[in-house]
């Protein structure tokens, strides 16, 4: 059986990206599985944390994204100046981006095909749990400080049974002698027995288990202590009682990880209106690197959430991808307008 011949820029780029990136991604994935075991120093008595493996899972993801982006930018002539046959493509190709938009979609689809198995089956090999739970960041009140003067903060959780709540406040300098502040949890106005957390400094994270019931109002109550606590967005996170299939979580993560590549290729396309291919490749590589290894963008959060069994779609992690999507869209429009101007 022969496959139908690829004819448009999307399918042509998809096939080329897949061919270019498949083997290196596989090798990077194998290296990512083998190296942690080869390099790890055993610490007896300590459990292994799934999130600790996230850099090793990010390695093949980065390889796949970088090679797909590089291949797409090198393959489609309208990505850069002085590419052979630009006139032929510019004349034949339809649409506002003259095929460059379709080429980007082709590259993203190739990346999706390559990363989907890594983020579903591969994540399990890196220690991700079999199921994922929804995590929701609760919107803070206008004055999110918990002190002796303002002893209660109220939050509205989503209407679903909850399994636990994570508290991770910021701590201000103590008022008087240092005494860690104790916080009591109240559900719908009633004290939850035993649900007390103590905080002495910023970024201490405490998980308090909840009865698997739906709660309309979740309150934090100051008990005692001299450390004022601040609970901005992200400081209070509830975990839903039900579980979601991790395969879908992996698929959602794979989709989210397309956004940094989209942004990198879009800015490469923008740069290509006035620059040749080496510059275009550099722009794509730098932007991809910054958005993944550099921690700007959703990549780091997504992989970490996946390995820790946190549902990424839709959640705070999901929304971290929006800036990449917005910036990439603006760059695509800018690239189109610059090329239009150059033709005049």
């Amino acid at each position: 059986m022969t496959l139908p011949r690829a004819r448009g820029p999307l399918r042509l780029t998809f096939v080329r990206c897949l061919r270019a990136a498949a083997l290196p991604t596989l090798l990077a994935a194998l290296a990512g599985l083998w190296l942690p075991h080869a390099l790890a120093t055993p610490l007896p008595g300590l459990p292994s944390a799934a999130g600790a493996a996230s850099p090793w899972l990010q390695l093949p993801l980065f390889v796949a994204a970088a090679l797909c982006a590089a291949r797409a930018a090198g393959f489609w002539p309208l990505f850069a100046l002085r590419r052979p046959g630009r006139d032929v493509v510019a004349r034949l190709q339809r649409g506002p981006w003259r095929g460059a938009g379709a080429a980007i979609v082709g590259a993203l689809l190739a990346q999706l095909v390559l990363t989907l198995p890594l983020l579903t089956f591969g994540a399990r090999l890196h220690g991700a749990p079999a199921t994922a739970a929804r995590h929701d960041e609760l919107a803070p009140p206008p004055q999110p400080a918990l002190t002796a003067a303002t002893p209660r903060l109220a939050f509205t959780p989503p209407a679903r049974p909850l399994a636990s709540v994570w508290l991770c406040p910021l701590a201000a300098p103590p008022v008087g002698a240092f005494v860690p502040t104790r916080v009591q949890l109240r559900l719908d106005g009633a004290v939850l027995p035993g649900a007390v957390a103590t905080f002495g400094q910023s970024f201490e994270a405490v998980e308090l288990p909840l009865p698997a019931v739906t709660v309309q109002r979740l309150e934090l109550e100051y008990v005692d202590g001299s450390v004022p606590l601040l609970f901005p967005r992200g400081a209070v996170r509830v975990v839903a009682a039900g579980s979601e299939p991790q395969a879908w979580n992996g698929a959602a993560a794979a989709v989210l990880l397309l956004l940094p590549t989209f942004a990198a290729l879009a800015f490469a396309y923008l740069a290509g209106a006035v620059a040749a291919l080496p510059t275009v490749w550099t722009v794509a590589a730098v932007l991809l690197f910054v958005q993944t290894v550099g921690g700007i963008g959703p990549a780091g959060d997504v992989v970490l959430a996946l390995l820790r069994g946190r549902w990424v779609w839709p959640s705070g992690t999901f929304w971290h991808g929006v800036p990449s999507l917005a910036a990439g869209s603006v760059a695509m429009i800018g690239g189109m307008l610059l090329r239009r101007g150059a033709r005049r």
Partner: protein
Amino acid sequence: MATAISARQLAVTFAGRRGTAVAALQPLDLEIARGRIVGVLGPNGSGKTTLLRVLAGLQAPTGGVALVLDRPPTDRALRTRVAFQPEGPLPLDVLSAPEYLAWVGAELGLPNATSDARAGLWLDRLDLRSAGRRWIRTFSTGMQRRLALAAALLGEPELLLLDEPTNGLDPFGSEIVMQVLRERAAAGATVLMASHQLLEVEEICDEVLLLQDGVLRARGTLAELLGTGAQSLVVQGLDADGLRRLGDAARGLGGEVLAVEPRRRHLFALFRRFAAPPGDSRR
């Protein structure tokens, strides 16, 4: 006769360094009838490619107007009616020849079956079938030129704008290309080709435009531009005395003997004899 290309005061000026302006094409008037093969001659930098790019809708003129098949060159409807073959390497050079033609066919909006059938025809005709699944970037210059022509012909365009179509081709390749262009012209297509291959232009073109520094220096049919009124008579088997007496006879009839020189065969005949494989009809 219907007009394929018309231009009035068509001019292109590029911005140079330090604010200077470089006139790539000085205002020119042009009228080319349909079904003609027209050669554009001129030294490097004379404006040949610029003229073709303007007519292909890839370069906006800075002055004047041009009409191609009665439409502005940038009209998207001309995308399928006008084919442009630029000089230089082909795009998408990691495709094979059939894949490249499939892409061109798809962009021209041809049904897949039609596109594949025409592609097969031109691959055979232009001697590219042997390239198989090889990437275009591994092709010789001549093969790339032939594939570019196949792509240009795929949509059966009414106007062919060709920049150096025989550059880098071996004599067989040039012969095939010229034959194909003649056939297209006989079928009603117009061909405008820029070339440095003067002998080929002389052989194939009905008309010639001569550009220099962006100025149209001369234009006309080859007879108009080259005609001397002289005619030649080729004789064989006469010795020197016989030739002298033939010359005297010509002068007696009121003519003038301009040259007496031995006639050689063309180099192409020799090339054909040695380069064509045994049994090839071209020998």
